[in-house]
Structure formats: structure tokens, C-alpha cells
């Protein structure tokens, strides 16, 4: 009979008995995200690992156990615990907490990015800046949300982390949030990647609303070719200028530009290749799973998460609007040389946002080919988000 007793005991220690209702809900949420990643192909490279991490932590919360409070200022340290008593995903999460993973992903992004279209048309940089508008609008909304009845609202650090969703850039959002509001990392990362995948649905109505038919039909001149020397010097100039002005952006922007230098220098092809492939994929897996594993039911299922999802959508919308409106302004200044549809690409979300500009442009003028013109603001948006994140970190970081 003792075997039966033992099995009963196992059942009592099993997840069936120990999991909270929040865990069960989150398991369903993770199924939903897996569905979006696999069937709908929404940013699957990150959403699949995130969803799986979410699944694991909610069936077995101890996979993120942190008896030594390695990644938190709060909580009590278990004096008898060893470092290896921490959950395996908690240990890997150190790569996120330390910013190493986001920085390495940004290096990979740099190695994959061609800044040529931006160099051919430096005005793109202004569009990439204007399309960060949503960040600041979202920040205000997050702060003001505390005024709602029955809702506690967000602290300034939390609001800044939520706002960065409007930067439409995953690693930047993870980088900033893991430093300012690590307890919100799960919902913010999920919102950022989901909305990036939804760009083709979110942007077109806003683009149409804010532009006239005539504007959408504008054909743009071909871009000039860019010399190799310009492409090599550009990442160095960006690093020096931006880091001098906003020192705290150094890790993120520095690594982005290092990756780009690997790509453009022509003498480090094997480093560029590894940064884009083996290293990028390894870090993507580890970062995705552990970021997903921060979304344990008790913290994720909260009014705050719903607020984050709503504010995140607004952030994307206002960033899109900022880019389009500024492009309209540039169009006036240049007397009709800029198709405002390329402004929306400034949100970053490379290369989906640029593709949206291309597709929309062709709808109204089939001979239009906006892709390359939109790539300029698109890659400028990556720099813009990083600068915005640096500003927020400087303002709210310790």
C-alpha cells in the first residue's frame, strides 16, 4: 500500500495542487502566444521563446527561484542557499539583468543593418526622431493613468519603461525595463514584440487618416549611392556624438555601432557573420526564454498589465502619427519632395515598418517604390529609440 501512499504524496506535491489560478490562466496565455508565434508567424523568433518561458515558469515557478536575491533589491536572502540553488532560468536571466544580452542582440542588429539609405538622405534622421513621439505621449498617459478610479497608476520609473514600448524596438525596451522596472519586464516585452508584429495592422489607418491622397501619390527621387568610407565612418560618428551627449546610452548604442562597423569595415566579415548568426541566435534563445519566465502569474495578471497593453498600443499609434506628421512638414518645406507615408517607418520595427510604407505607397500610385526611402527613417528610428531610452535612463536611473 505504501506505493499508493507515495503516489498520493507525489500528487500532492504536483503542480495540480500547488499552482495558483493565475498560473493556470498564464498557461492559457502562453498557449495563445505560441499560437500567434507559430500559426500567425508574429515575430516568432522571439515570441516563441518568450511564450515557452512563460509556460515553464507558470507550471514550475521555482525555475526562476532566486533565494540569494541575485536580480532584485527587494526580498530576503536565504542564508543557507548556494548560488546554484537558484532556478536555472534565473541564472541565465543574469544575462538580461546585466544588460549583456540586450547589448549583444543590438550588436547583431547593427551587423544586420545597412545605414546606406539613411546616409543618402540624412533628413531621415529627423523622421526617426519624430516617430519617437509616442514614447513621451505614453509616458504622460502612464503617469496620468493613476487618476483613474480603482487603479493605482504607475511610478515614474514604471511609466518610463512602459513608454519605451513606443520606441518599437524590442532589445531597447528590454534593456531599459530590466533596469528601471524589472517586475514589468514580462508584459512590456510581450506588448513590444506583439505590436511590432502587428505593425501592418496598426499603421495603415493612421497613415491614411493623416495624409491627403495627393501626398500619398508623391514619387520620390532616386537615392544617391553612398561610398564605403561614409558607411565606415558613420557608426563611429554616431557613437561619439550620442554617447558624449547622453553617456548612459553607451552600452546599447555602442554595441549597435560596433556591430555595424563589423559589417561595413570589410575586414571583419567573420565577426560580422557570427554576430548576425550563431551569437545572435544563442542570445535570442536565452533572452527570450528568460524574459518570458519573468511573467509569473501573480505579477503578470494585474490591472497594470492591461494598462500596459492599452498604453503600448497608444504609444505605437502616436509614434506613427509623429513620424507621418513630421514627414508632412518636411514635404511642405521641400516643396513636395517627400511622400509623408515614409514618416511612419521612423518608428523603427525594422524592416516591417518600411515595408508598410512601401505597400501603402503602391496602393495609391502603383509606380511608387518607397522601400528604400522608408529604410532611412526606419533605421534612424533604431537610433532614435536608443537615444530616447538613454534619456529616460539618465533621468530615472539611479
Amino acid at each position: 500500500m505504501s506505493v499508493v501512499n507515495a503516489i498520493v504524496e507525489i500528487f500532492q506535491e504536483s503542480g495540480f495542487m500547488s499552482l495558483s489560478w493565475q498560473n493556470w490562466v498564464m498557461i492559457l496565455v502562453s498557449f495563445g502566444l505560441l499560437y500567434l508565434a507559430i500559426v500567425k508567424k508574429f515575430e516568432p523568433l522571439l515570441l516563441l521563446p518568450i511564450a515557452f518561458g512563460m509556460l515553464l515558469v507558470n507550471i514550475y515557478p521555482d525555475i526562476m527561484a532566486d533565494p540569494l536575491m541575485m536580480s532584485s533589491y527587494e526580498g530576503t536572502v536565504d542564508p543557507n542557499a548556494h548560488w546554484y540553488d537558484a532556478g536555472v532560468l534565473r541564472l541565465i536571466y543574469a544575462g538580461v539583468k546585466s544588460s549583456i544580452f540586450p547589448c549583444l542582440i543590438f550588436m547583431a542588429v547593427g551587423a544586420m543593418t545597412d545605414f546606406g539609405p539613411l546616409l543618402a538622405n540624412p533628413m531621415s534622421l529627423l523622421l526617426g526622431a519624430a516617430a519617437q513621439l509616442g514614447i513621451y505621449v505614453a509616458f504622460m498617459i502612464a503617469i496620468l493613468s493613476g487618476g483613474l478610479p480603482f487603479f493605482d497608476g504607475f511610478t515614474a520609473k514604471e511609466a518610463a519603461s512602459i513608454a519605451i514600448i513606443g520606441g518599437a524596438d524590442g532589445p531597447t525596451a528590454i534593456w531599459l525595463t530590466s533596469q528601471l522596472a524589472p517586475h514589468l519586464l514580462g508584459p512590456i516585452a510581450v506588448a513590444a514584440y506583439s505590436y511590432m508584429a502587428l505593425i501592418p495592422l496598426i499603421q495603415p489607418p493612421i497613415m491614411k487618416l493623416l495624409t491627403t491622397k495627393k501626398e500619398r501619390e508623391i514619387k520620390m527621387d532616386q537615392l544617391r549611392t553612398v561610398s564605403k568610407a561614409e558607411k565606415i565612418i558613420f557608426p563611429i560618428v554616431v557613437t561619439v556624438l550620442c554617447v558624449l551627449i547622453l553617456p548612459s546610452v553607451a552600452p546599447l548604442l555602442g554595441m549597435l555601432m560596433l556591430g555595424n562597423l563589423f559589417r561595413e569595415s570589410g575586414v571583419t566579415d567573420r565577426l560580422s557573420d557570427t554576430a548576425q548568426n550563431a551569437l545572435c541566435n544563442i542570445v535570442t534563445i536565452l533572452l527570450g526564454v528568460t524574459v518570458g519566465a519573468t511573467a509569473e502569474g501573480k505579477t503578470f495578471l494585474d490591472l497594470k498589465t492591461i494598462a500596459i497593453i492599452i498604453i503600448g498600443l497608444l504609444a505605437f499609434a502616436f509614434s506613427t502619427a509623429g513620424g507621418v506628421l513630421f514627414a508632412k512638414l518636411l514635404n511642405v518645406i521641400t516643396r513636395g519632395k517627400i511622400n509623408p507615408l515614409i514618416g511612419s517607418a521612423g518608428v523603427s520595427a525594422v524592416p516591417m515598418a518600411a515595408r508598410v510604407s512601401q505597400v501603402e505607397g503602391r496602393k495609391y500610385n502603383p509606380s511608387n517604390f518607397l522601400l528604400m526611402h522608408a529604410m532611412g527613417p526606419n533605421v534612424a528610428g533604431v537610433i532614435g529609440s536608443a537615444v530616447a531610452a538613454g534619456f529616460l535612463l539618465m533621468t530615472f536611473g539611479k
Partner: protein
Amino acid sequence: MFNIILALANKRDIPIGEAVNISVTGIVVVMLVLALLAVLVLLLSKGIRAVESAAKKRNGKKADSESAEAKPAEPSKPVGTALPESASAGDLDLYNVDEKTAAVIMAIVSNESGIPLNRLLFKSIKAIEK
């Protein structure tokens, strides 16, 4: 309306006024930094193009004087690269294929397919071991 906003402010860890201030400063900083970058890029591009066109002119003159002297074109000699991995010509990796053969292959592909050479990217050409 203003009263409501002030009421909100008391619940937050920063006053609304400061939040507005931070938001406005934020977008201004981003605009300024990227505008500054745009100016630098413009200057940089102009500088580089000036240098490059000057270099071209000089080379052009040199070429003229050289052709006047009727020197036979020196065959490009491959200088030992420091990379240990493989023989490489620009972006193209060659395995057991000399550069001349590779050039012939590339020219043929371009010619016959009607695709200009500058739109074809060869990553590597490899003669399979017999």
C-alpha cells in the same frame, strides 16, 4: 480640468508638471541629437566626396601620364592577407579556383543572364575536388 490634474499629481511619485517637463525635454533632446547627427552626416558626406573626387582627379592625371609613358599594366599581384581563414577576393571566397577563372565565370554569368554584374553577388566559387 486643471484641478483634476493637480489631484492626480498627489498620487504620483512625480508631480504632473515635472512629468510634462520631462516629456517635452525628452522629445526635444531626441530631435536635437538626431538633427545634430544629420548635420554631421551632411558635412561628413561632403568632406568624403570632396576627398574622393580629388583623389580620382589625381589618379586620372597619373593614369594619363602613365599611359603616356606606355608602360604595360602591371598585373595585380595578390598581397598576403593576414587572415588565416581562406583566400578571399573582396566579398567572394574562392576555393581551389584562381581569381582569373572566377572572373571569367562571373563575366559569363552576367553576360548570358543579362543581369548586370553589379547586381549579381557571388559569395564563393569552389571547384570540387576531383
